[in-house]
Structures are given as C-alpha cells and as structure tokens.
C-alpha cells in the first residue's frame, strides 16, 4: 500500500525526468539529486524525502519518451518509489527493468494525489475511490530479467550457463 504523491500527464520525456544538462554524471549515487529538476514541487518532495517508501507516481501515456539516457531511470531508482503509467516508451521501460525500477503498465489508471493504491497480483486497487484497474503484464523476456533482479545478475547467470555448455 502506498499513496499517490504526484500525477503527471502524457509524454513525460527523459528531459523532464532527468535534464540533459546534468548528463555529465552517470553515477547512481549522484543522479537522484537532479530528479524531475524542472518540476519543482515533485523534485523537492523527492529530494527532501517528503514521501513514504513504496509511494506512487502516476503518469499518462508514453512515460519516458525521448532519449535512451539511463540516468532517467537511475535518478528514480534512488528513491523507494513505484511508477504506474498508462504506458511507457520502449527504451525507458527496458532500462527500468534492467535497473530494477518498479514500473507498472496500467492503461485505465485513474488516481489523484493522496489516493491510497495497492498492487495485488495483476491489478491496482485504488482504496480511496474503490476502483480496480488491470495491469498489463510485462513481456516474458522482461519478466525474466525482473525475476533475476535486474540485467546485470541476469547476464551473469546467462554467461555462467553458456560457459558450462
């Protein structure tokens, strides 16, 4: 269970999530400092830790469109936060799964700031409104990476398997 801390619209680009002018760093210890830098309210909520672990950011369609920059994922990965979007841009979604950022695809999601959400199986329950929304499961190739704990452990496992053969 977690609260919705912010609701974003459609087509939130990687430049919004992590502005290009901070791309000089790739360190996961540094990128969280610049998260949503140009959306001041959300930025402050995250960097000043004004949320509870497991809270949600809800977004519209095409979240993470634009650049392949992995900082857009590592910046969010710095916070114990879940992202629910109507859908995600391809590279961002793959990067999220590779780095272990919890992302949920929910085309019908309806939620406002402050709503209590819970992920139960293949559904999101909005306890505030009493409505339930179906989640689209991740493609099986992506789920395998999630199950392995991210792409690095997954690749390590694959490599060991290949060496044994």
């Amino acid at each position: 269970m977690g609260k919705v801390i912010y609701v974003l619209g459609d087509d939130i680009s990687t430049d919004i999530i992590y502005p290009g002018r901070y791309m000089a760093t790739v360190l996961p210890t540094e990128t969280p400092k610049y998260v949503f830098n140009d959306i001041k309210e959300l930025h402050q909520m995250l960097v000043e830790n004004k949320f509870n672990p497991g809270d949600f950011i809800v977004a519209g369609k095409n979240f993470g469109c634009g650049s392949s920059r992995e900082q857009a994922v590592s910046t969010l990965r710095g916070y114990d936060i879940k992202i629910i979007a109507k859908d995600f841009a391809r590279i961002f979604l793959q990067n999220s799964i590779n780095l272990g950022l919890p992302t949920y695809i929910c085309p019908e999601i309806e939620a406002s700031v402050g709503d209590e959400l819970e992920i139960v199986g293949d559904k999101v329950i909005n306890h505030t409104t009493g409505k339930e929304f179906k989640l689209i499961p991740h493609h099986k190739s992506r789920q395998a990476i999630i199950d392995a704990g991210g792409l690095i452990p997954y690749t390590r496992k694959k490599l060991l398997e290949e060496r044994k053969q």
Partner: protein
Amino acid sequence: MGICHQILPENGYVRPGYLVVGTDSHTTSHGALGAFSFGIGATEMASVWTLGRILNVQVPETIKIVVNGKLQDFVEPKDLILYIVGLLGAEGANYKVIEFHGETIRTMNTSGRLTLCNMTVEAGATSGIVPPDDETIRYLRQVAGVQDEIEMVTPDPDAQYCQEIAIDASKLVPQVACPHTVDNVKPISEVEGIKINQIVLGSCTNGRLEDLETAYNILKGKKIARGVRMLVFPASGRIYREAAKRGYLLGLMEAGAVVVNPGCGPCLGVHQGALGDGEVALSTTNRNFKGRMGNPNSEVYLCSPSVAAASALTGVITDPRKGG
C-alpha cells in the same frame, strides 16, 4: 570525429540486413541503409558486449508508409518526417517499426533517408527502415568506400503490416514542430512571424553536407538578421572538411553564422548554445522537449535546413518558398 549516427554510415559500418544497437535513441537512423537498428540503455550495451548478442527483442509490428510524388522546392525530407510524426503522434509507433516505401523514397538520397529514419523514434518507433536499393549501394560504394559484397535484405513480398499510410509528397509544405513536443507539428503558415533568438543548423538529423549546402545556397552573399545568433555544427569531421573545401562554411560565416566543431552541439543542452531565459530557438535538430536546449524557460521549434536558413535572414520564422 563527429556524431556516431554519421560516422557509422559514412565509414561503411552499417550494411543492409545488419542488426545495429547503440546507446542513443536516434540509433534508428541506420535503418536508412536497410539495417534493423535501435537504441538501448548503457547497462544493456554492457550485456551485449558480455554475451555478444542482444536480448529482449520483442518482435515489432511494422507500419508501412508509402510516399509518392515530388517534393516541392524548399520542401525536404525533414518536412516529411515532421509531418509523419505529427500524423502518428509521439507514441503512434511505440514498439513498432516504420518502413518507408514509394517513389519519393526511392528517389531520395541516403542523407535524406537518414533524416527520415533518425526521427522515427519521435513517434516512438523502435526503428525506421528503408528497404535497400541502388541508392544504398551507391552510398556504400562511393561514399562509405565499401568494396566487399553487399547482401541485399528486402521485405518479403507477402510481408504483413499492422498499418499502411499513403502520403502525397507533392502536397507537402514546410513543417514546424512547436514547443514542447515533437508531435506538435504545424504547417509553416501557422507559425510564420514568430521571433527567433537562435538558429541551429546541424545534428544527426540535419548536419550533413546536403543540409549545409541548402543553407549556404540561401545565405551566401547575404547577412543574417541583427540580434539573431546562428550556430552551425556539421555532423562529422569529414562533412566539416568537405564543407570547408566547397566554401560552404566560409559562406555561412560571412553571412554571420558561427561554425562550431562537429558533434551534438546545442541539440541537447549539455554545452554550446544553451538558451537564455525566455529565448526562442529554431533548430534543425530532432527534439524540442521543455529544457532540451539547456533551459526550461526557453522554447525550441524544429524545422528543415531551408526554413532555418530563410528564417536566419529575417529573424522570424519564414517560409523559404517566399525567399527574397
């Protein structure tokens, strides 16, 4: 020296039928040579290096776009792809491949095809692709210096497409993508007269020799408007040198432009040409997201080299077809 999306094609690293991955979303560009080419993240690239193969390719559906008719003077491949992105929307091709067909594409040179495929990602596409043909071979032999055999991989005659779109290129007018999304595309008549502080010519989208030539032909012997900065950044060192030999760079500089080193330049706001508060840029690059050119309090309009050059002369967005 230069942008990978120019360096790879011009040195023959990309061939028809190749699978190309790169840690940049505009890796879609290489589909111009008949490769299946897409962007991935840095960790995924480490995995590719480790395993020697790409994981997780969800077989995409394909949108077939058939373009026929001759482009009007001063209407360019950039206008065509802006129009297509506007038509499909920012996620209209998410997880899909856009395949280009028709006479307009067949008679388009590889530079133009690179511009088309480059921006397919702005409609969310995994990749853009032009089936290879005689022009592909010409480019690989004459420009990229490829000497060995080139295998032509083309679509099956019974290939299935999830969507087909027909476009009449002869009716296309110059297009402009307005702030702050690339799919906010309007015909130039709706944005003419908007005041510009900075003109940007270059990038992996429009930093090729033909693009510099187009701008040179409009600007030679003239002066860009007072109060307007114009930055030119060729896509590669080879283009830079060739443009210098042909006098394009001198002509652009004499018109008042500043020519900077080959590379990504001001496109993504990490260096060179970051905008000031309240400033407006008109750029031949590929993205106009809020803050893209280094300042969230600025605006970026996207256009073709012809529109950029014509607007440099007036200081406002200008239709190059009405040129003086």
